[in-house]
C-alpha cells in the first residue's frame, strides 16, 4: 500500500479538572514546591507601552461565576511583536507575553497586569487590531476554549480587524471587547466571559 497516509493522531484533550492548580499554579492549591512558578509576570519590568489591568469573570450557563478555572494569556508587546522566533520582531528583555491567571476560589474574579499590546500583522499583511489571546480550561471544559480580548477604545482598528470581521453576526463581535474604565487614574479593562446564554462569548477553532 504505497499510498498509505502515515500521519499520527493528535492526542485527545481531557478536562483539566478542578485541581488544575496543583500542576500549573501549586501556590494556589496551597503549597510551595517550585523555585519559581511560571506565568506570574506577563510583561516583565522593561516592557515599553501603557501599563493596564484586565479583569473579569467566567460565567456558566446558570449565570454563576466559575471558581475553578485557569486562564492563559498570550500577547504581543506594544510594538506588536511576540516573544517567539517568528514573532515579528524583537521584544524587551524579560518580556514573555504569556501568563497564567486563576479565578478566585470565593468570587470567581480574575485579573492580570500587563502592557497593552500593539497591532500585529495579519495574513496577507493586513493589520490585526491590538488583542490578547485567551485560553480557558476548567472542570467541565473538555477541550480548552480559545477567545480574544480586544479593547473598546480601539474602535477604528477594531472596525478593520480581519478576525472580528469574520464573525458573521455583528452583534456577537461586542462579546470580544474589553470595556475600559479608569481606577485611580489607571486604565482597567473589564472582560466577562459567558460560556452560554445571551451574549455567549465568541470562541475560536484556531
Amino acid at each position, binding site marked *: 500500500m504505497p499510498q498509505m497516509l502515515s500521519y499520527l493522531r493528535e492526542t*485527545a*484533550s481531557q478536562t*483539566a479538572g478542578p485541581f488544575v492548580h496543583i500542576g500549573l499554579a501549586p501556590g494556589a492549591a496551597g503549597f510551595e514546591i*517550585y523555585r519559581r512558578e511560571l506565568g506570574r509576570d506577563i510583561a516583565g519590568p522593561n516592557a515599553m507601552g501603557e501599563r493596564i489591568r484586565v479583569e473579569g469573570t467566567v460565567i456558566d450557563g446558570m449565570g454563576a461565576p466559575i471558581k475553578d478555572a485557569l486562564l492563559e494569556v498570550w500577547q504581543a508587546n506594544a510594538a506588536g511583536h511576540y516573544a517567539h522566533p517568528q514573532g515579528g520582531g524583537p521584544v524587551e528583555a524579560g518580556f514573555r507575553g504569556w501568563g497564567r491567571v486563576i479565578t478566585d476560589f470565593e468570587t470567581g474574579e480574575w485579573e492580570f497586569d500587563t502592557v497593552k499590546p500593539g497591532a500585529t500583522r495579519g495574513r496577507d499583511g493586513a493589520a490585526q487590531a491590538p488583542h490578547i489571546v485567551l485560553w480557558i480550561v476548567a472542570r*467541565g471544559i*473538555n477541550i480548552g476554549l480559545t477567545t480574544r480580548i480586544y479593547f473598546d477604545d480601539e474602535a477604528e482598528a477594531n472596525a478593520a480587524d480581519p478576525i472580528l470581521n469574520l464573525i458573521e453576526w455583528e452583534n456577537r463581535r461586542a462579546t470580544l471587547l474589553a470595556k475600559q474604565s479608569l481606577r485611580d487614574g489607571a486604565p482597567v479593562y473589564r472582560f466577562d466571559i459567558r460560556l452560554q446564554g445571551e451574549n455567549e462569548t465568541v470562541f475560536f477553532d484556531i
Partner: protein
Amino acid sequence: MTSAGDLYPRDWALQPPALTQGYKTSVSRAPRYALISLQNTVSELTGPVFGPEDVAAGDNDLLTNFAQPGESPIGERIILHGRVLDENARPVPNTLVEIWQANAGGRYRHKKDTYLAPVDPNFGGCGRTLTDENGAYHFRTLKPGAYPWRNHLSNWRPGHIHFSVFGTSFAQRLVTQCYFEGDPLIPLCPIVQTVPDQAAIEDLTAKLDLKATLPLDSIAYKFDIVLRGRRSTPFETRPEGN
C-alpha cells in the same frame, strides 16, 4: 524549523465535544454556538518559549521533589516516559511538559479536595520538565490511586496523571490525562468517554514498558503525546489565487 506553514486543521472526530451529557459538569460549561474557524495568524502560530532557566533538575522527580530528606511517598514507584511528537511524527524538542496527580490513595494535595483518603506528607503531586532534542521526556513518580467523584454516585476515576504540553504554537496547546494499561475503570469513566474515538482513547492509555524498568526500583510506563502538525508545501495560498 523548516516548515513554516499553517497548522493542520484540528481533526474534531478525535476530540471531545464541549457538551457531553455523561459528564454532568460540562452541561452548564459548554458553549452552545459553533466555534468560529480561523486561518492561523501570527497570534496562533507563535507561543511561549521555555528554557532550562524555567525548570530545575529535580522538578521531574515526584518521589523526591516534595519529600522530607531521607523519606519517600507511599505507593508503587513508576517511571513515566515518552516522546512529544507532531502529526508528521517529528519530535517536538525543548517544550514544557507539566504533570499533576493524586497520591497512591487517590487524594490530591489541594485545599479543595475533601476525599477521605489522607494526603501523603512526602508527596506534592506535580512535576515539570523540558523535552530533549528528540522530544523525549521522563518523570519518576508513583502510580496514582482511583477515587470516587460526584457525577453519578457510582463513578470512580481510573488512576490518571494530568498532562499539560505547549509545542511551538499556542494553537497546539494541550491538556489531557494519561491512564494506565489494564485498568478496568477506563471504559466506565464518563470523562474518558467524552472522547468519541476508541483509538484516540487507546492513545491516552500508557503502556507497560518492561524494558524501561529500573531493575529492583521502579516499573515503567510509556506515554507518547501527539500535537498538531504543520503544513510544509511548495504552494502558498495567495490572496489573488495560485
